[in-house]
């Protein structure tokens, strides 16, 4: 294993040396807060630092290295132009406590991104505050709860299809709602009879992902939303799969009341070891007064950051969320424009269908190979060789690919959830398909090769059982100053 940078530390080693004495501590800081000894930072030269982190970056799998087909996560390539925009000095050097007069450009970025997200999704108002998809869900549930409390309606139930992301029921539970899972129909879509039977005067929200986690568009979405609204409940869209819809269909037009989107999925900001995330929440006009604060408003030709709404659910993040991420997402949206975003979704859906059709037969796709941006295959046929989906996933790493999402959604046994995204070329998809075919062959001929995989990675198969049963969450740091 690679050594930590602390283990590489040698006393007195430096990147740069400065002449003269170290500057004294600024005056006015109470003595109790002043450090009495060195901070214990690693002492290393510049080339050592550079090599250390470059070496670490080669040990891990990331989207700059190769395909990352992790279903429902939209691990698309993060354009480096985004980084250039986020590094513009006037933005990167801002302090959140600066006055509105000093930060008009930044406030305009926030305001413009909110407008763009409204235009893309058909919602009336957006807040960018939530720092992740699940944080957006939590906010969405808080909004729904307050919406009904303000209207003196006692609605405690949230309906969630059994194909939903696990975060959906978790978010509803955190806010104090009671979850009810709805079994999906044979075709993987919402079963309208089941929905109808479970909807009642106590139902607050129906949470839905479109396309759903099987990569299938809910063909009866209009009727679904009508049914829910007829009972006075709200419809929530988990926008994790928005990458399938850009420029083709808008959740707001479908009738959704609250949605979240993931800038780190659909809008190409860093994800998976990168980040931070951002899960903006959009609402229809009736819920707009409840949105968290602060909000950016345009008044008399200038932007202000305001917190004065009596009906707001309050703050859910310090300042106004993860601003650096907004710059990256806005850069991506403006660069592609409406037509470009539409082509992005078309290509994402085409790529997923290409892979699904190539793998169908070897890896059954129980809900049909016609999909949108992702599909769910099954590793079931390989069980007879003693090979499980986990083994297939581990073996894929030997071919230089990240594994798909496995064992989710729960309604497909031995699930392999594959989302190639639009940023992959046909050549890359073909390499992936070849690897999957090779693995299917190996499963029959040499199952042990899969059961003991991975073989070519920096670490071999991890002991996930012990890691879960007896996790070691701390490690002593050697004192590097000695």
């Amino acid at each position, binding site marked *: 294993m690679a050594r930590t940078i602390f283990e590489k530390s040698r006393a007195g080693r430096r990147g740069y040396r400065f002449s003269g004495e170290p500057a004294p501590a600024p005056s006015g800081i109470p003595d109790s807060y002043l450090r009495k000894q060195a901070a214990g930072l690693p002492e290393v030269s510049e080339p050592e630092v550079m090599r250390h982190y470059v070496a670490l970056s080669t040990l891990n799998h990331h989207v700059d290295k190769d395909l990352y087909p992790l279903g429902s996560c939209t691990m698309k390539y993060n354009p480096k132009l985004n980084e250039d925009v986020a590094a513009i000095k006037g933005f990167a050097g801002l302090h959140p406590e600066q006055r509105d007069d000093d930060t008009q450009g930044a406030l305009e970025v926030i305001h413009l991104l909110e407008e763009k997200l409204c235009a893309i999704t058909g919602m009336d108002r957006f807040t960018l505050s939530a720092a992740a998809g699940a944080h957006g869900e939590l906010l969405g549930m808080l909004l729904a709860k307050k919406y009904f409390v303000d209207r003196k309606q006692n609605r405690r139930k949230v309906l969630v299809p059994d194909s939903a992301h*696990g975060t959906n029921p978790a978010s509803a539970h955190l806010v104090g709602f009671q979850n009810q899972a709805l079994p999906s129909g044979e075709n993987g879509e919402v079963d309208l009879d089941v929905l109808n039977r479970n909807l009642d005067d106590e139902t607050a929200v129906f949470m839905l992902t479109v396309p759903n986690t099987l990569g299938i568009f809910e063909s009866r979405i209009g009727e679904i939303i009508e049914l829910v609204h007829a009972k006075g409940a709200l419809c929530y869209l988990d926008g994790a799969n928005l990458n399938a819809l850009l420029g083709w269909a808008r959740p707001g037009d479908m009738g959704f009341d609250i949605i979240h989107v993931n800038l780190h999925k659909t809008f190409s900001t860093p994800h998976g070891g990168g980040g931070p995330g951002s899960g903006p929440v959009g609402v229809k006009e009736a819920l707009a007064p409840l949105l968290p604060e602060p909000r950016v408003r345009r008044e008399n030709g200038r932007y202000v950051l305001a917190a004065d709404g009596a009906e707001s659910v309050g703050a859910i993040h310090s300042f106004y969320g993860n601003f650096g991420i907004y710059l990256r997402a806005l850069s991506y949206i403006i660069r592609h424009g409406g037509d470009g975003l539409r082509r992005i979704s078309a290509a994402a859906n085409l790529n997923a269908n290409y892979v699904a059709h190539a793998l169908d037969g070897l890896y059954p796709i129980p809900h049909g190979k016609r999909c949108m941006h992702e599909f769910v295959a099954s590793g079931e046929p390989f069980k007879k060789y003693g090979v499980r989906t*986990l083994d297939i996933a581990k073996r894929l790493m030997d071919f230089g690919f990240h594994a798909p999402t*496995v*064992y*989710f959604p*729960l309604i497909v046994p031995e699930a392999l959830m594959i989302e190639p995204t639009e940023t992959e070329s046909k050549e890359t998809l073909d390499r992936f398909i070849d690897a999957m075919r090779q693995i299917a062959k190996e499963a029959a001929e040499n199952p042990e090769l899969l059961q003991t995989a991975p073989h070519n990675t920096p670490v071999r198969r991890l002991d*996930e*059982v012990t890691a*879960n*049963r007896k996790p070691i969450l701390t490690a002593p740091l050697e004192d590097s100053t000695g």
Partner: protein
Amino acid sequence: MSFENMRFSKEHEWVQFEEGSNLVTTGITDYASGELGDIVYIEFPEVGQELKSMEPMGTIEAVKTVADIYAPLSGVVREVNTVLNDDPGIVNQSPYGEGWFVKIEMSDRSELDGLMEKHEYDRMVGKG
């Protein structure tokens, strides 16, 4: 082993009963523990808690997933197998023996008739 005094739910729980007693022992089936894989944590109901048949009474966490445990029968929890807190892997090794979950005092003995016998359960999971 004999499965004569055992009944099975479609959610993969088993119930072991004795004539003349309303106290039953429950757990999850060999098939379920095999499908879940290595079990790492079990969240039990409280002793004294009232259960309603086919409603969640706890959760079972494996390396790859988390699943609800459903009450196979209505009744009151009388005992919980706390040994599993320290070593949940016992469920994988001995799902019908030392890996039992909870003992329930049934409130309605006729609910047993709604559960499956072993051969019916085996047919459901494709093993019969």
